[in-house]
């Protein structure tokens, strides 16, 4: 069942080294059914391409998905570029999927992602948590505010 339109845009993207797309096709449908407009950047999105897409589409949220096992590393590079690189942006960013090669969450790597400016790090089974993140009131505004405070 789909929820009514929120009027907000979510950018769904793969990471620079990850070619998997079924995750992206799935997440697009999942997020659309929650009432968002989705821009799906597809696989193998370099850090610069992601930053440029954020500038062009001005999304309310970026959802990064990676399943190839390089997600912690590639995600860190993407978020760092987004928060610190040219045209730095405070758009909320969440990441999830199969982020490492060991099949289990790495608390240290997740902490590095959060420290670099990720608003949430999800595991591959955390779809309910993502749904909650997307449906709680004014999620975007609140996370953006948090970052406005931390980028000084």
């Amino acid at each position, binding site marked *: 069942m789909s929820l009514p339109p929120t009027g907000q845009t979510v950018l769904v993207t793969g990471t*620079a080294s990850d*070619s998997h*797309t079924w995750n992206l096709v799935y997440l697009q449908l999942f997020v659309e059914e929650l009432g968002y407009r989705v821009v799906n950047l*597809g*696989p*193998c999105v370099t850090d610069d391409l992601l930053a440029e897409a954020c500038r062009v589409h001005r999304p309310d949220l970026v959802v990064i998905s990676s399943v190839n*096992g*390089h997600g912690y*590393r590639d995600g860190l590079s993407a978020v760092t570029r987004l928060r610190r690189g040219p045209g730095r942006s405070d758009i909320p960013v969440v990441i999830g999927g199969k982020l490492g090669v*060991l099949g289990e969450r790495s608390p240290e790597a997740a902490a590095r992602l959060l420290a670099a400016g990720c608003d949430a790090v999800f595991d591959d089974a955390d779809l309910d948590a993502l749904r909650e993140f997307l449906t709680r009131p004014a999620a975007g505004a609140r996370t953006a505010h948090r970052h406005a405070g931390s980028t000084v």
Partner: protein
Amino acid sequence: MSAPQSFGRFVARAAAGGGLVVQPRMGFGTPRLMRAGLERVRAAAGSTAGTLTIDSYTRVGDLAAAGAALAEGAALNGYPIATHPPAVTRELLDGITAADFPVQVRHGSSRPEPIIRALAAAGLDATEGGPVSYCLPYGRTPLRESVDNWARGCELLAELVPAPRTPHLETFGGCMLGQLCPPGLLVALSVLEGLFFAEHGIGELSLSYAQQTDAGQDAEAVRALRRLAAELLPPRVEWHVVLYTYMGVYPGTRAGADRLLEASARLAVRSGARRLIVKTAAEAHRIPTVAENVRALEIAAAAAALTEPPAAGDESADSEVYLEARAFVGAVLDGGGPVGTALRTAFARGWLDVPYCLHPDNAGRSRSVIDPTGRLRWSRTGSMPLAPVRRSGRVPELTADGLLAAVHAVARRYDHVA
């Protein structure tokens, strides 16, 4: 005196002795672990071939990231063959590669030149690829560029692996996105990529097909692939068919994973495939360990040994899969000209259209379903040269739950057998 060794002749010799060659999809970042893995694969029970599966950074051509990850000690999802110096790779293979244990490089790069140079420099002859299949499922490279890169890649492999060595290339066209692509299109793509390789100077090939949802339909597909290859490849080209154990979402339980692996080994023997690339019980979760790879190889080899090979003579049936694959191949080759150009035209016009593929050079108007009997079928044919689908009612709208149910159908069936 025996003929010089090659990947294809190794497989042919195993087949003559009644054995199916089994091979892993194994790859690790460090030479030490990679060598340990190959040693164990070589020693495994069964007729095994070795694999170097290459990491994602090297696949997308980001050699700087591969180098940086190694320097950080980060775990990679494969072996960075273009980053470790050739001497390191030669040393890791020393005493391992032999006439009775060839090693193949499997990657997934639409820009294969550095990988081909590195494997040839390390003394290896066999790899995998395809202008379409190493492009559409693997990123954003335009198809036009991938076709050019792979034309040059074939010629480079032929040049860097001179006689008496034999360059060997396997198509990935029989797999594409791993799931939900009806077999007729997979068979056609595998044959077309084989023709492309032959046109660009490769004389020894393997043609792939990946297990799908129904054993009967899959057996038709492997036979159709063998028949079309025999009909269309130049007689001077040596080839065999390689089956991939299921390439979509894999069963999550060990019992389910093992059952699906065994089913693929039986399918390989019954349909006349000569080699099987296995999946492990870790597939649904993470990169498998060496031990998990060896276990999968031995399970597959044992299941194959207990299966009767096909009786000769039933190869020429005009099955549904054969007719569909022939329609695709015919439509692509009809206009004449080089196979690479014909493939580009066919994708641009939507004659070939891979379902659920996001790549901008794929038309994206086709759709597939698993029918009530378990066979994979078209539910929308777009501009493909197929009879339009007869249907009672509308094709249901694609939903997140619907997609998840479709990609998990095989896993669910094998996980839940009592």
